[in-house]
């Protein structure tokens, strides 16, 4: 029984989600191998070799793997799948894109967003926007999982696994990468941040959003997040969205300012260690999950908070 973790990386380094996925892989029992598929991603492969618990790194290097297109990455995973009992992907946009393609081609079911490994064939996952937890058992010969990163700690360093080159698959050719528009940010990555300051529709405009929340985030070294309402209104970029359909986060401190707390938002942040809600409306559902609730106008309370920190 051996598990293959499909690494998410930017060629130079590993994305944090890969480390959480390795922890889940170790809980499946057996050896853990990591696949780094990309183009000139030797640095990422080296980083994978240093993760504690990893016994082998497979490195597939080819130009057609450079942009991580689902068709080519899935074909690469399939070419290696025969040797593995478990294939684990982080439940990120990339993992969710590729994993079901692999599962279907192996004719097995996939378990999405696993939050706990109960045994090598039994897993826990949230359903209905986190309002219920299902325990599912797979009888398939290969278990294909995506791992919710906030459910597992990041694996530590200290490994020294050998890196082995594997033959890259040929380009499928049906899909072409055109371009990428990256949101620039000097802040910690949302899904990995220890503290998150998140704003909702009550901020009123994109200028206010930045003007009010940025000083607080700066003071705390926090990442900025947003509710779907704030994103839809154009106050914050899409990839700041916390919720069922956005990012799932679990920081040690989550400050929700002007967020009512709709089910879809709560699904993305209710595993945070400490939740602070700042809202004018005493009836806002966010107060039912907040450890500390402050019923106040955020335009006064947030600047005051910055002064007192």
């Amino acid at each position: 029984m051996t598990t293959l973790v499909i690494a998410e990386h930017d060629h130079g380094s590993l994305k944090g989600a890969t480390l959480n996925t390795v922890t889940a892989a170790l809980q499946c029992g057996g050896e853990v191998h990591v696949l780094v598929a990309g183009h000139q991603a030797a640095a990422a492969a080296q980083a994978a070799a240093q993760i504690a618990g990893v016994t082998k790194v497979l490195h597939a290097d080819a130009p057609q793997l450079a942009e991580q297109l689902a068709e080519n990455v899935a074909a690469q995973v399939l070419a290696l799948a025969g040797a593995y009992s478990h294939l684990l992907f982080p439940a990120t946009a990339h993992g969710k894109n590729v994993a079901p393609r692999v599962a279907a081609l192996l004719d097995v079911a996939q378990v999405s967003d696993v939050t706990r490994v109960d045994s090598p064939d039994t897993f826990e996952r949230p359903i209905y926007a986190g309002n219920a937890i299902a325990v599912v058992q797979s009888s398939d010969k290969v278990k294909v999982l995506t791992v919710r990163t906030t459910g597992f700690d990041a694996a530590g360093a200290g490994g020294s696994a050998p890196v082995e080159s594997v033959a890259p698959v040929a380009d499928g050719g049906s899909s072409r990468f055109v371009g990428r528009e990256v949101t620039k940010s000097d802040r910690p990555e949302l899904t990995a941040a220890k503290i998150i300051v998140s704003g909702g529709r009550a901020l009123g405009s994109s200028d206010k959003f930045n003007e009010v929340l940025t000083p607080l985030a700066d003071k705390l070294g926090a990442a900025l997040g947003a509710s779907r309402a704030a994103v839809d209104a154009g106050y914050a970029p899409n990839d700041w969205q916390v919720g069922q359909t956005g990012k799932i986060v679990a920081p040690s401190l989550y400050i929700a300012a002007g967020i009512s707390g709709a089910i879809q938002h709560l699904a993305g942040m209710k595993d945070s260690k400490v939740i602070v809600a700042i809202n004018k409306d005493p009836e806002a559902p966010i107060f039912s999950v907040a450890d500390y609730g402050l019923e106040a106008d955020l335009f006064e309370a947030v600047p005051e908070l910055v002064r007192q920190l």
Partner: protein
Amino acid sequence: MKALVAVKRVVDYNVKVRVKSDGTGVDTANVKMSMNPFDEIAVEEAVRLKEKGAVSEVIAVSCGVTQCQETLRTAMAIGADRAILVECTEELQPLAVAKLLKALADKEQPQLVILGKQAIDDDCNQTGQMLAALAGWPQATFASKVEIADGRAQVTREVDGGLETVSVALPAVVTTDLRLNEPRYVTLPNIMKAKKKTLEVVKPADLGVDVTPRLKTLKVSEPPKRGAGIKVPDVATLVAKLKTEAKVI
């Protein structure tokens, strides 16, 4: 060219679901059901492509119980031309649905299949990708913009960290993200017209698909409750609590 749109009947997104006390699942009896919100966006996009002349016919498909006909009527009221229901009472998992859709795609030969990125009940986010794999087609998931030209679809996708654009050869599978469009409201005249449109009913066996679930649900439970929090009177108290009690800053 034809476009196929897959729609799912799910518990309405406004409903706060309850877990059954015997742990077998979520109580769906007498609960308001509607079309999965991402699928509404999928239908809207297909209809807009038809209005632009890129698509000639929009076929809505749903898999599940008889009541899914209502969901298909809604899709036709938005603008789908006809509908197909794959009727069955068993639990359908994404792999089974993907196989059913693949069989229908073989029959109808669409150039484009549009699905929602995930259903808000099982939160799987798998069916579109699985269908693309089974059909051997390229995929463009989490789409926030779709343009059809010269036998290809250029799709802007929402990914972690920003946006990414890919160009896929048709036939292809596209799954919708929230920001792709805003679905129109269905009007009464269109609801009436939808009643006259064709709705074909087939069985999984007619399509030669085995829909036996592969995953067994052992238990469904309530998520752990958070301990009751407190309200603080002012910012000073909040800062003090965060520093001394919670020790998070």
